[in-house]
Each structure stands twice: as C-alpha cells, then as structure tokens.
C-alpha cells in the first residue's frame, strides 16, 4: 500500500480500520501480571502446553541417560535394581503420556486455529482445564521418583506383579495420576474434533482441509476409542488394589490377561496417536520446501484414515507370547502387515512431492529427511516383529527396544524437532538460527544411530528388556557400551536444540511475514502475532490459500472478510458446516478465568488424595470439583445473547445462539459420550472375557443379581429417559410448569432406578471380593449408577436454569444436551440390565 498520499476516502478507511482494530484488540487482550495465568486463549495455553511437555521430555531423557549409564558396563552398581526399575517405568510412562500425546495436543491447540483461520478453538476454557490437569498430574507422577516411591511395574503395569506383589504407592500413583491425564487428553480430543469439523473458515470444504487437520481429526477420534479402554482397565485395576476386587487374581477367578487386552487395545493405537500428528507436521513442512502442493492429497488422507482404523486391530501383537491360540495370533499378524500399507503410501506421497517440486534446503527439511531415514528402518523392523514366529524370539528383547525407538524417535521426535524449527517463528515472531540447527541435527542423528542400531544386535544376542544389569561373559558388553556413548551424543544434540530455543532473542529482528513462503493459513499472521489471530476470517478457495489467492494477506489485513470487528466487545469466531464450511453461527467464546485452574486443582485433588487412600479428602475435593465445574458452566456457558443475530461482514448475518445438532456444545456432548461408551464397552468386554476363560460363568446362577430388581430398575430408568425427552418437548412449547414437573418426575424415577439397580446385587448378597463374577457385576452396576448420578445433577441443573431465566424456550442448549446425555443413559442402563440379569439365563 502506498502510504504517502491519502485521499479523503482512504483516510476515512484508515480511521475506520484503526477503530476496528482497537475494538477487536480489547476483548482479545492477553491478561497482564499474575492474571496472565488466567488466560485461556489458544496461543497462550498452546505455548504453556508445549513448554510443559518439552520439560517432561527432557526429564524422561535424563532418566534414559541414567539407564544407559547403568548399562554401560556389565554388573554395574550405579543404580540399584529398584531405582532402575522405577527409572525405566517412568521413562516409558512420561515419554508416552506426558510427552508423546500432550505434545500433539499442545501443537494442535497452538496451530490448528491459525491453520483454520479461526480466532480460537470452540472451548478455550476446556483446553485450559486440560492443560492445568496435565500439569498437576504430570508433576505428581514425575515427582514420585524424588521420594523413591515411583511406580516400578513398567509403563505397561502388568498385574499380578503390580496388583499383589508391589507394596507402596507406586502403582497407585501411576494409575490415578495417569488416569487424570487421560481425562485431559479426552478433553483435548473433543476440542480438536469439534475444532476441525466446525470452526473452519468459509469455503474450506472438506476437500480443501489442510492435511494437518485431517490427521488431527483422525487422531482425536482414535483417542476417543483408545483411551477409554485404558481408563476402564485403570478402574478395574484400582478396584483390585484399593478394595481387593479380584479382577486379575487367578485364585479368585480373575485373569491377568484381561489387563493386557485392555492395555494394548489402548497401547497400540496409542503408538499411532503419537506418530500420526508428527507425520502431520511433515505433511505441512514438505510442500512448503518443495514449493508445490502435496502430490497425492487423497492418498495421504487415505493413509491417515486407514492407519487410524487398522491400528485398532493390532493390539494382540504385543501378546504373541502369551500362549494365545495360533489362529488369534495370525489375525493380528495379518492386520499388523496391513497397517504398513497406508504408512508406506504416505511416505511415497512425500517423496513424490519433493520430486515434483523444487526442493529448498532448510533445517526443518533436514530433520524431516533424517526422520525418514530412521522411521523407514523402524517400520521395516516393525514388519519383521509383526511376523509372529520372529517375534517369539525378538519379543521383550533389545531388538524391540531398538525397533520402537526407531519408530518413535524417527516418527515423532525428529518431526517434532522439524516442527519446532518450522513453527517457532509463528509462535514467537523470530526465526531460530540455522547453524545450531545443523549441529543439533547431526549430533542427534549420529547419536541416535550409535545408540539404537547396536541394540538390534544386542537383542538378537539374547539380551532381554528391562534388565538392570547383565552378566559379563555373554557378549553384551561391547554393544552396550557403544549404545551408552551414543546416548550421550544424542543428548548433546538435544541440548544444542534446547539452548537455541531458550537463547534470549531480544535484539534479533522479527522474521518477515510468512518466513518460509508457505501456502497455508497459519502463516497469515503478522510477526509478531496479534492476540486476535487473524485480522478478518478469510474466504478460502484452495488447499494453499496463500499461494492460490494472490491478494489474500492484503485483503485479510484490510478487514475485507468476516468478523473484522468486535462491536460488542466480545470474543467471537465463526462456526461453519462440517462438509462445505458454510458459515452458520457466530460463536462467542469465553475469555480469561481462573475457574479452570480451580476445577483442575480440585479434580487433581480427588485423584491424588485417593492415591494416599485419604478418601474423605478425596471425596471433598471431588465435590468441590463438581461445584466448581457447575459454577463454570452456570456462569460461562450457553449465555443468552443480547440480540438474535449479527452482521459478520460480506453481507452475511449469522445467529449468535444455536442449540441442538448445529451447536458446538451438542457435538462436544455427543463426542464425549462416544468416548464414554467405549469405556463402557471395555467393561462389557471384561464380563464376556471372563465368560470365555471360565467353564461356567456365571459360576453359580443362584448368586447373581436376580431378575426382579434389575428389571424394575430398567423400567424406572426408561421412565426417567422418557420424562427427560418429554420435558425437552414442553420446554420448546414454552410450558415451564410442565417442563419442571416432567423433569422433576424424571429425576425421581432416576433416583428410584439407581436404588433398584443397586438393590439387585446388594440384596442377593454379591460380595465383590469373593470372586471375579460378583466383582464384574458390581463394576457394571457402579459404572451405570455413577453415570445416572451425573444425569441427576444435569436434570436438576436444567430445572434451575429454567427458573433462573438462563434457559428459555428458544435458548435451550442445556436441555438439548442433557437429553442427548440421557439417550446414552438409556443405552447404558438397558445394556447393563440385559447383561447382568439376562446373560445368566443364557449361559
């Protein structure tokens, strides 16, 4: 733009734009001073999240160096057996739960809204809550090692070692601390799914979605199906540890293999949950430095979606040596081969892109190339161990250690390093220096291979995993020493990277806008970025809008697109349709608050106090968490706007309030309940698993929960569901009295149903500590009743909202979402009754 001469029009225009910018910056301002920590905006929370998970990564890396030091020479006494076991357990757990998964959530929270031209994710406070939960849980789990009480059962925590043979708090810290973090991951998954599907810029149809968003969508959906089985497993596990319910105790009908199934139904998809987002970074970086759009966009989408599905059919390949029938092994072996196909496709798509484009050398691309070299080898050894006969030898040896590090360091750490270099200017406005990048890369690359390449041979020579020492006379010495030296070289590379990131850059000038000449929207912002993200939300016409639409940056800055202003002083972003991204709502997103921190503290308290078996404190903390969450919902959600709709620019007027299936809240509830259902399905799987391992299950039909009470419960709960449904209808008709009476009756029926459901096993004297059968029945009943309890709170909440005037006939988000919840309650209670009362009649 030419600034030297102004006509009147231009001057007016400029004044108008400056006024817009002033109004826009007011609500999006990041809080200052100590209030900074009340921020909920994605750029702040994403930054904290990223920094925190990197700190956990460095912590786990130091643990790895301790292990390598211990193993440098045979029969070393640097670490005691117990300490070593704690160290390797924490190394694995922290890398998986506190780095691998969170780093993807962190990156996504930070860059996804930018990539989609959105001002924020749809539930910023949920992200903040997730972050604080992650921080508290992570510190709790990591801190344990400084008191010598860290878990020492491996990151897989196999019972009965961990349920009956390890005293102390270690296993409880692992279970409760990580369950708490898993809940945070589920929250992030909900956020990201809704983010990808509903907050895209107008015009970004599903065929134009950035590949990163495709991967994140797939991964977030995978989390919904992968994490809940582990949460269900954790529940069974903790019931056994705390209350002696014998799920994994063979002397009372339990079976340790159930844990392995549940753990690996989580554990294998988990590998892809941390690998796919890293590949997603590669999918963004490669086109930028090939200076052309990706070749084979649809093929990459195929790879992402296909891997997501097939990764759920691999879990038993971690159980090849447990004596399962050959035919079962064979199915998993087949699926494990199949998953290599989509993985290969995406690698060839990246190669093809570089080939067809004009390749530009850069640090991020160097890390990507290194990642490829490492990951491909890891993938190939993965194909080898997926062949069951070879795994009979390689399983639980250093060969697998080598394989998994090739996959995870090549498939996650190197791409993340590339992503760090690439996205650093987006987050801070400044570029990282090139030279330290090359140093870091070569040290890491060489160090990595020196560490892990020999481990293939160490494993083949017969060295098992998870050993704190080894004998001198069996040929392991030399290779182990080499690995240790390599580990320190690798660590030096990471150190260079960390120093470059932390180096004060006060004097360094800001990078130019879009420093890499990338094509996607996250590079739209100014350097340094403004708190509002994008000046106006653009209309997108291609997969690489910055390449495809020549004047895009100018028009965006001029506020020529959507939402260039914030007349009402509120934080706003656009909600669009799932497939075609037609704008359908102007969503008001909430601003800074400390309530999410409080909610996370109290939730954390509930889990942490339970670890120490201080149940009174834990209960109090849980109650406070519930109250805090209710206050948060009451004051911060489903606000009735001052007007029905507003003009968002380009002549489009959008409603400010939406309920039902067009609202983001409804989507969040639906997605959460899908996750909830998969946890419930895992508990059901437990019931039928015990049926297959026992000749007679239920062992003695007379000792079951009977038929009468469960059927009564089913009838009452069905009634509660119908009442909830009817009251939604009456609310729509604006009949508050009928609504209140209907929902009140629903609540009463609900309470009666809960009591009837508990009466079945209670009155029939089912003792959950005696045998696994009563324990399984009880756990299904408890799961159901706790959910119904939550349903009761929701029913009362809706009545209160209606009378407080915060819900009306038109503004009915609350009751719509609660009804949706109750649909799932109807399914849960119906299936519970069918199984506990009906199945004994068949079996």
């Amino acid at each position, binding site marked *: 733009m030419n600034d030297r001469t102004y006509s009147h029009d231009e001057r007016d225009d400029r004044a108008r734009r400056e006024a817009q910018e002033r109004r826009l910056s007011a609500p999006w301002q990041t809080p200052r001073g100590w209030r900074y920590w009340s921020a909920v905006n994605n750029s702040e929370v994403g930054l904290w999240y990223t920094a925190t998970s990197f700190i956990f990564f460095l912590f786990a890396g130091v643990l790895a160096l301790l292990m390598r030091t211990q193993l440098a020479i045979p029969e070393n006494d640097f670490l005691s*057996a*117990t300490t070593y*076991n704690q160290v390797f357990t924490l190394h694995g757990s922290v890398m998986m739960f506190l780095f691998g998964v969170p780093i993807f959530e962190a990156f996504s929270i930070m860059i996804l809204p930018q990539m989609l031209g959105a001002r924020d994710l749809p539930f910023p406070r949920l992200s903040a809550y997730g972050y604080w939960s992650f921080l508290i849980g992570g510190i709790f789990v990591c801190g344990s090692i400084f008191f010598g009480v860290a878990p*020492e059962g491996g990151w897989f925590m*196999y019972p*009965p*070692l961990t349920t*009956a*043979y*390890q005293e102390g708090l270690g296993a409880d810290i692992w279970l409760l601390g990580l369950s708490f973090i898993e809940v945070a991951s589920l929250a992030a998954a909900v956020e990201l799914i809704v983010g990808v599907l509903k907050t895209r810029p107008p015009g970004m149809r599903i065929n134009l979605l950035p590949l990163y968003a495709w991967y994140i969508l797939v991964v977030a959906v995978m989390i919904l199906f992968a994490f809940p089985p582990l949460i269900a497993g954790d529940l069974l596990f903790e019931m056994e540890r705390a209350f002696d319910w014998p799920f994994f105790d*063979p002397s009372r009908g339990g079976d*340790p293999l159930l844990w392995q199934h549940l753990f690996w139904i989580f554990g294998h998809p988990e590998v892809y949950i941390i690998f796919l987002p890293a590949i997603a970074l590669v999918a963004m970086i490669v086109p930028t430095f090939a200076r052309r759009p990706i*070749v*084979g966009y649809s*093929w990459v989408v195929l790879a992402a979606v296909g891997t997501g599905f097939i990764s759920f059919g691999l879990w038993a390949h971690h159980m090849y*040596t*447990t*004596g399962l029938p*050959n035919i079962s092994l*064979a199915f998993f*072996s*087949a699926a494990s*081969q199949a998953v290599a*196909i989509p993985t290969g*496709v995406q*690698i*060839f798509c990246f*190669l*093809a892109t*570089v080939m*067809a484009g*004009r*390749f530009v*050398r850069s640090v991020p691309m160097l890390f990507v*190339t290194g990642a*490829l*070299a490492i990951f*491909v080898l890891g993938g*190939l050894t993965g*194909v*080898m161990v997926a*062949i*069951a*006969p*070879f795994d009979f*030898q*390689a*399983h*639980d*040896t250093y060969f697998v250690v080598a394989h998994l590090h090739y996959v995870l360091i090549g498939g996650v750490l190197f791409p993340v390093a590339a992503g760090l270099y690439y996205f650093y200017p987006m987050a801070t406005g400044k570029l990282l220096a090139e030279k330290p990048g090359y140093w870091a890369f070569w040290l890491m690359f060489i160090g990595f291979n020196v560490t892990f390449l*020999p481990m293939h*041979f160490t494993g*083949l*020579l*017969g060295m*098992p995993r*998870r050993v704190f020492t*080894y004998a001198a006379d*069996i*040929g392991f010495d030399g290779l182990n020493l080499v690995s240790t030296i390599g580990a320190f070289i690798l660590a030096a590379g990471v150190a260079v990277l960390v120093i470059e990131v932390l180096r004060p850059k006060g004097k360094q000038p800001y990078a130019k806008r879009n420093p890499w000449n990338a094509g996607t929207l996250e590079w739209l912002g100014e350097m340094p970025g403004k708190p509002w993200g994008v000046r106006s939300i653009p209309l997108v016409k291609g997969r690489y809008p910055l390449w495809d639409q020549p004047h895009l940056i100018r028009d965006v800055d001029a506020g020529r697109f959507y939402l260039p202003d914030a007349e009402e002083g509120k934080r706003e972003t656009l909600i669009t349709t799932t497939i075609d991204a037609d704008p359908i709502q102007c969503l008001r997103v909430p601003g800074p608050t400390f309530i999410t921190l409080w909610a996370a503290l109290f939730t954390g308290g509930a889990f942490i106090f339970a670890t120490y078996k201080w149940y009174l404190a834990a209960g109090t903390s849980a109650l406070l968490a519930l109250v805090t969450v209710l206050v948060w919902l009451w004051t911060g959600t489903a606000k009735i706007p001052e007007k029905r709709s507003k003009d968002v620019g380009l002549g489009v007027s959008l409603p400010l309030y939406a309920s039902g299936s067009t609202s983001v809240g409804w989507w969040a509830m639906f997605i959460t309940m899908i996750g909830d259902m998969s946890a419930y399905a895992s508990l059901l799987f437990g019931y039928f698993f015990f049926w297959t391992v026992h000749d007679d299950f239920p062992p003695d039909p007379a000792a079951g929960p009977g038929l009468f009470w469960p059927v009564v419960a089913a009838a009452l709960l069905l009634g509660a569901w119908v009442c909830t449904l009817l009251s939604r209808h009456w609310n729509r008709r604006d009949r508050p009295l009928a609504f209140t009476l209907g929902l009140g009756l629903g609540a009463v029926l609900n309470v009666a149903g809960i009591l009837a459901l508990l009466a079945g096993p209670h009155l029939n004297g089912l003792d959950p500590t005696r045998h696994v059968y009563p324990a399984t029945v009880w756990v299904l009943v408890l799961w159901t009743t706790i959910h119904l309890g939550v349903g009761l709170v929701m029913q009362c909440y809706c009545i209160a909202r209606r009378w407080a005037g915060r819900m009306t006939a038109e503004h009915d988000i609350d009751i719509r979402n609660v009804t949706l919840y109750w649909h799932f309650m109807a399914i849960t209670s119906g299936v519970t009754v069918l199984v506990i009362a009906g199945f004994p009649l068949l079996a």
Partner: protein
Amino acid sequence: MDATYLSPRSWGWRALIALPLLGGCSGPQSTLQPAGVDAEQIARLFWWMSGFAILIWGVVIGCAVFVTYIKPRSHDSRVARWLILGGGVVVPPLVLGVLLAFGLSLLPSLSAPAEDGLQISVSGERWWRRVRYPTPSGGTVELANEVRLPVGERVGFRLTSPDVIHSFWIPSLGGKVDMIPGRTTRLSLEPTEVGVFRGACAEFCGTSHALMNFRVVVMEPDAFDTWLEQQASPARPPQGEVARRGQEAFLANGCGACHAIRGTSADGVLGPDLTHVGSRLSLAAGTLPTDAESFERWISHPDDIKPGVNMPAFDMLPAPQIHSIATYLSQLE
C-alpha cells in the same frame, strides 16, 4: 558337562571374530547361532527379512536423498505419481502378502506338540525356576534353574507360575512363551546340538527380573538318561567333618522349612530343591558358580546378590557355621 563359554580361551577367538561383525551372532544366549530346529527356522526367517529390509531401506532412502540433495530440481510430476502408485500402492501389498503367508505357514510347525516325547514342567517363581522331570519309574524329580535335554528329541514344556508373569526363553533353541499365573502355557523345542546354553526371563517380573536366568544343557540321549537317573536318587551323605557339621547346621537352622534335600529330613517346598545342587552349573538362577565360596556369599547376604529375594539373610550365623553349610551344599552333586 563343561561350560565352554565360561572358559576365556574359547571366548578369546570368538570375540576376535565377533567384534568386527559388530557383536557378531555368537554367544550362549544368541538367537542367531541356533542349536535347535525352531531357532534355526526363525534365524533363517530373520536373515531373509533383514536382507529384504536393507534392500528396501536402501531404495527408499536412496530415492529420498536423490530428489533432495543430489538432483533437487523439479522432476516430472507424472514420474512422481508413478512413484506413489508403484512404490506405495502396488509393491508393498504384494511383498507384505508374501511375507505374511510365509510367516503364517511357519506357525503350525513351530508349535508342534511333542506328542510322546519328554514332558517337562517348569514353574517360574520370583526369581528362579522350578523344573520337574518325570522319571522312568513314573515319579517326578524336582530341580531348579537348570534344564537338561536330550539332543534330537522334541521335548514339551508345561509352563506355569504361582506368583507373577514370567517368561521361559532359551534363545539358542527357539522362541519364548510367557508363564502366566492361573494358566498353563506350552512350548516345544527340539535341540540339534550338544552344548551348554543360557535361558533368561524376558517378561518383567519385578526387582530381580534381570537375575532370573538358567542354564540349558543339551546332552547325548544316553548321558541324559544317566543324568536323570542320578538326579532322581537321594542326596549323598556329607563327606568329611566340615560337611557333616554343615548338614547338622542346615537342619538345625530351619533351612529345611523352605528347601528339600531328599534323603534328609529337609522337605521344604517354598525354595529350590537342593538335593543335587552341587551338580548344577549355577547358583541363584544363573548368577553365581556352585563352589563353596559362592554358597557362603549367598547364605550370608542373598539380598545383595539378588535384590528383593524371598530368602532371608543368615549373616547372624557364626562364620564357621556358614562355611560348613556351604561346604556341605557344594558337595551335593
């Protein structure tokens, strides 16, 4: 039977070859120096797969380096498309399919039951192995941490555990199978070479998981029969004064509450049967040799040698008494 790998001389030249080969393939616990039918099949599978893996890796990475650093100019995008179709879509399913079929075809033979062969029961306990052989007379004889097998015969193992999950693995002979409480898992192996090998626990089983090893001795069938017969016999009486006092002290200090020595009043079942402990190649699950000095160390401070072990330390006994017990036990051949 002489433990060849323990002799530094035989190791010297092996190490010479091994080092240049980056560790090579040899060793008493190596999967790549097979001495059994199953290990041989798996090793062959490994070599084939590795060969192909290296080839594929070379092609893919070569291609990547070529298009990035050697010829970074823009290539024909049609060629790029063919790369996706050929390299990503057509070739992998075929290669993987063939490999899968080959892998599956191996499965039935690898778990072939030892129909009428020897059946050995092994129980993994923290952190040692209880091994039970059927004797020709129809009884059973119990050993610990040592498995002896006749060469050229398929032998079946019934694997159990009374406490946590362990694993039974003799890399030189074949794959591993877990030992899971509440279940009985099976394995069969067919050694083809006479020799001494090492077995290990592969499934993490607690504090001293690293120290749960055992020796495997593959013998000529005749020698095996003689050995089994000898193992089935009761313990020989103590030789000499020190050993005699050792036996008395053993019985007087309640060692028999956990350990059995057939032919004496010691009949404990919690710990390893010591009837012929002196004839074994190792003490404390592959950790120490079976000389008197090692027994002394073990009896005084088992927890130092094997952290977390169930056996209490007996360092409160007077040193001469420990010495005599050690002498007695080391004589039990």
